[in-house]
């Protein structure tokens, strides 16, 4: 299987997880309200489960957003830079972004053994499961930034023209 296909497959899986998690958060919390008011039996697990899904949904969602280059950015100055300079600039910024993904992965993994000793109050799940979302998200974002970086270098500066804004 080529790299492209793997990356597309990963994207599909992430999309599926995000879709299911958002839907599940809504249902779980709605269920919790109903249980509390109608049956007077609030489920203790609802908050922790929804927090867990929320964190992973955010980090996976951020990876998807990275691939489609739609992170929130302020691009009115970049839009004024001439094309060739913009191409160099964007790819330079991509390297900076990669470096930050590196920070997220390295230090995110480094704190796992320490924070993992604590447990969540009701489900007694290791906090590590929550904290792992940061390096995991950093890794996925890094992969997609690398993909965009290589593709952009291959296609040359002409690829920039097609995009609105800096297209990061």
């Amino acid at each position, binding site marked *: 299987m080529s790299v492209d296909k793997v990356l597309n497959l990963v994207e599909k899986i992430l*999309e599926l997880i*995000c*879709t299911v*998690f*958002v*839907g599940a*958060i*809504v249902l779980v*919390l*709605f269920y*919790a*309200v109903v249980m509390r*008011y109608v049956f007077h039996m609030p489920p203790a697990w609802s*908050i922790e489960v*929804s*927090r867990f899904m*929320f*964190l992973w*949904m*955010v*980090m*996976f*969602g*951020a990876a*998807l*957003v990275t691939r489609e280059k*739609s*992170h*929130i*950015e*302020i*691009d*009115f*100055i*970049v839009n004024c830079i001439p094309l060739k300079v913009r191409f160099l*600039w*964007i790819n330079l*910024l991509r390297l*900076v*972004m990669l*470096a*930050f993904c590196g*920070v*997220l992965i390295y*230090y*995110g993994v*480094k*704190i796992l053994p320490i*924070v993992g000793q604590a447990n969540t109050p009701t489900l007694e799940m290791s906090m590590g499961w*929550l*904290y792992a*979302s*940061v*390096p995991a*998200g950093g890794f996925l974002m890094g992969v997609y930034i690398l993909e965009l970086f290589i593709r952009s270098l291959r296609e040359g500066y002409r690829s920039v023209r097609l995009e609105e*804004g*800096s297209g*990061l």
Partner: protein
Amino acid sequence: MIHYIVITFIATVLLGLPLFFGFGFAASMACWVADLPLEAIAQQMMIGMDSFALLAIPGFILIGDIMCQGGIAKRAVDFCVALIGHFRGGLSMVAVLAGMIMGGISGSAVADTAAIATTMIAPMEGENYPRDFSAAVVATAGPLGNIIPPSIPMIVYSMTSGLSLLDMFLAGYIPGVMIGLSLMVFCYYTSKKHGYGRTNARFSWQRVVVTFKRSFLAILTPVVIVGGIVSGIFTPTEASMVGAVYCLIVAILVYKELRWSDMPQILLKSAKATAKLVVIMAIGSVFSYICISEGVPEMIKRFILSISDNKLVILMMLNVFLLFLGCILDILVATIILVPVLVPMADAAGINQLHLGLLFVINMSIGLLTPPVGYSLFVASTVSKVSVEKIAVREFPILVTMVVILILVILFPQITLFVPGLIH
């Protein structure tokens, strides 16, 4: 130290690094230079995200998307047309009124603007409104949506400042309605003066009753959401989820404008929109952690108090500064950078925190209508296909109207504090 953060931030953000990475890069550099542990970045990010209150964001975004696609916006507009469409300039007033109602349903300014722009611009064109004027009017749905609860900027502000979200929501009603009504007056006079929007429509009670029946369930949404929070039945997060389920049932089972098969795509869209916002909040909490450990709030506090210790002077200066920032910064970014500084400053100057919070939201919402960074303006421009510059010129009297209301709110804190005071 503060210079360092500011410079890195400007260099990256203004030069186009996405905000999440811009903040992250600046934070890494700052930690490195100041010998703070870099582990703090991963940990603070987690602390910034892992909050039950933040879960309200996907809920309110979902409500906005369901409302747009599920015919809820359209029905609210129909009701407004029946109510005030027969006046001279009626449709432009409908655009504002519908924006107010929509602001009361969804929490997202961009979704509100998109909903109003897509439903209103074509009919306004039919009644001889110039396109740039229509676009300028529909763009106000964004600021109105931010000021009238539920509102995502308020959720973010209350998260970062520790203010009660319920109080902020309630404080938004009077300023929001004041701005809405004054904009309607503005629309009426402008239309009368330039002869826009002549209409043969007659007012009929029958039509009002029919459209009210059709849109009743949609208009009930704010009552379910805010009523539920005020009466203590749910937390804001739960209210957003109950609201989402309610809108879903109304759109799919009652209005039948949405199918179950549309849902995966709507959910995914909401997930991505949530991720975009929340990663920035996460990295923003790293930013405020660094600021606080470097003693930045204390420095700013001393600086402001060295200029003046008159409350009103400080408030006025602050508002000019915020209005300016609102033009060049995204509301979310401004909240994350400024709130750690503003809160101790307000304490020092004796300004009520809730009043300040509302002023902040109003200032930043006005910025939604101004270039270079005004999302409502951009959405209105995309939908109406009129250039941003042309709309921005038309926006000017609208901005003046809003600033007048803003000054009233500054001078009379009761405008914001009255409603929250009622429930305490």
